């Protein structure tokens, strides 16, 4: 099932993250739309250079944390003061100071799990994900800039020239067959079951 490779990307390779930041700012100023940048480590200022909005993960953490506090207080008040009120150590049924530690722990628990869960779901990170790897060196020592040619009005030659101007070490073209879409667990498992680990097409392969 040889599919036509109709997704064309121009890849620029950078070693130095300052060159990368300058390069991206300059290229974007000259009208190049950048698909994505892949780095081995977080580069500070890269999200600004790419014009991304600030991460909203803190808000997710706050929402889940507030849910945790609410659940914890409701649970403790219901169990200790409503469902089976008991006098323990001469305290009132609603011994509020005693409810602080558990409320705090549940706030932290839900905030942490909720936020990390949101992060994994939103970024589609999961054990059976088969990522599209533009250049394998992106997890080693190079910063990989991918430009989707279809999304740009500039020609391949013009973008290549701009990459060179931005001190990219290497510029080359990569073509893919299909969109980078999410893998389903079923297709991953079926492929693994029928082809095994060694011949599975769902195991990330290298160039």
């Amino acid at each position, binding site marked *: 099932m040889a599919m036509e490779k109709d997704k064309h990307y121009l890849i620029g390779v950078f070693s130095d993250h300052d060159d990368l930041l300058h390069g991206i700012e300059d290229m974007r100023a000259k009208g190049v739309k950048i698909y994505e940048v892949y780095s*081995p480590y*977080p580069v500070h200022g890269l999200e600004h250079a790419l014009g991304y909005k600030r991460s909203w993960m803190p808000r997710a953490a706050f929402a889940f944390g507030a849910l945790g506090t609410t659940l914890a207080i409701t649970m403790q008040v219901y169990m200790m003061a409503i469902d089976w009120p008991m006098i323990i150590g001469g305290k009132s049924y609603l011994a509020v100071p005693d409810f602080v530690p*558990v409320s705090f722990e549940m706030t*932290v628990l839900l905030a*942490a799990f909720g936020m990390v869960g949101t992060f994994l779901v939103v970024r*589609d990170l999961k054990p059976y994900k088969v990522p599209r790897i533009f250049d394998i060196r992106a*997890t*080693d020592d190079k910063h990989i800039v991918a430009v989707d040619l279809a999304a740009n009005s500039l020609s391949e030659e013009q973008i290549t020239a701009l990459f060179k101007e931005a001190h990219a070490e290497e510029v080359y073209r990569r073509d893919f067959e299909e969109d980078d879409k999410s893998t389903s667990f079923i297709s991953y498992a079926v492929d693994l079951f029928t082809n095994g680990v060694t011949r599975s097409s769902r*195991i990330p392969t290298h160039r």
Partner: protein
Amino acid sequence: MQIISEVREPLVTGGKTIKDVTNDIARHVENQPTRLWFICMAISILFLGVGGYFVGDLAWNGIGRWGLNKTVQWAWDITNFVWWVGIGHAGTLISAILLLFRQKWRTSINRAAEAMTIFAVICAAFWPIIHMGRPWVGAYWVLPLPNTFGSLWVNFNSPLLWDVFAISTYFSVSLVFWYVGLIPDFATIRDRATSAASRFFYGILSFGWTGSAKDWMHYEAVSLILAGLSTPLVLSVHTIVSFDFATSVIPGWHTTIFPPYFVAGAIFSGFAMVLTLMLVVRKVYRLENYITIEHIEMMNIIIIVTGSIVGIAYTTEFFIAWYSGVEYEQYAFINRATGPYWWAYWAMMTCNVISPQLFWIKKIRTSIVWTFFLSIVVNIGMWFERFVIIVTSLHRDYLPSSWVYFTPTIHDIMSYLFTFGLFFFLFFLFAKFFPVVNMAEVKAILKDSNSKVYRARRTLVDEPLPQLEEKTTVAAK
């Protein structure tokens, strides 16, 4: 491409490039395990097996096998529990509190320290669970689940229940924090893997990570929030552990100083354990360029600070016992220092208060042999601290006819050995199959203070700053 500041030693020495970092760390995951690893693993499994026999015996015959009696109802079990939980605290301190304080030297040691935290908390959780006598029902009873007694709920006024929530939250949040940090490094190993099997396993572990800028942006926000959540969490955990004692009315336990004193003690013992482990890992994996003498010195400085806090706490306790005018309290403390357990008290004082003061001497705190030796001394001292607090406060209760001297049985000793086996078994597994140093974070600090360089360069219109590119280092000290 390393920029060397004129006033500070670089955090990673040896002129390492980003590629070197990948090679140096991933190599240990990819290579065959060494013979030393097999020997260490065999010893751990031996401890686990022999200790496991005695633990099985405890589960079968009951915890009457321990040396506990009607006066001393808590002894080694709870001592070991507090000791292991305390050890865990250093990992979170390094990964969370030092992250918030932007202490970049933490990057080389945080992965292993967090792993230590998780394994130490597993060993700690073992004690209350086995102490339940029938852990298969006990583990169910501690949770607020509906039951056939009415429902008779768990008691939210009890610090022991707070501990259930604190320890389980601490364990699971630490695990998540550690795993989130591991994802990019697993992706590095996946992309270097030569066999289909390791591509498959590390592919699963790496969750399909590609290192895209958007992923990193969210990742960094998530790490920062997790650090912000873990910081009060770690302080709350040992505070609540200390509440187990402090909210009681036993002389020697009923003390308001306990929460900060326990937290300082926990960090103190945890750093000692981090040093013990890291010095071995550094040697075996030849990570001298990543875990430098400066790292060791930094950790030793934290040991002096926390050790001194612990020393002040011991003195304050004594003073307050006298100042309170409560004779029971006064007796409890005099009995600690001069009673039948005087040897444990003075072992604690020597190991925890006197020995870390040696680190004031620069030669000692920058010496690997001394650091290794003193880190073990501190761990022994901190075990004695918990033993002294627990056993000496209990063994002479309100009726002199029930005064006893607690002696451990073989079951006490062997179940303690079991947790050592468990801890080192897990740690050696980790050291072989997981990257022991956080590669992504170390790569990020190689070219340090990048945002400053970036801003400076922008204003100078692409004129590289000569003084920052200079490779010469002026010794500041």
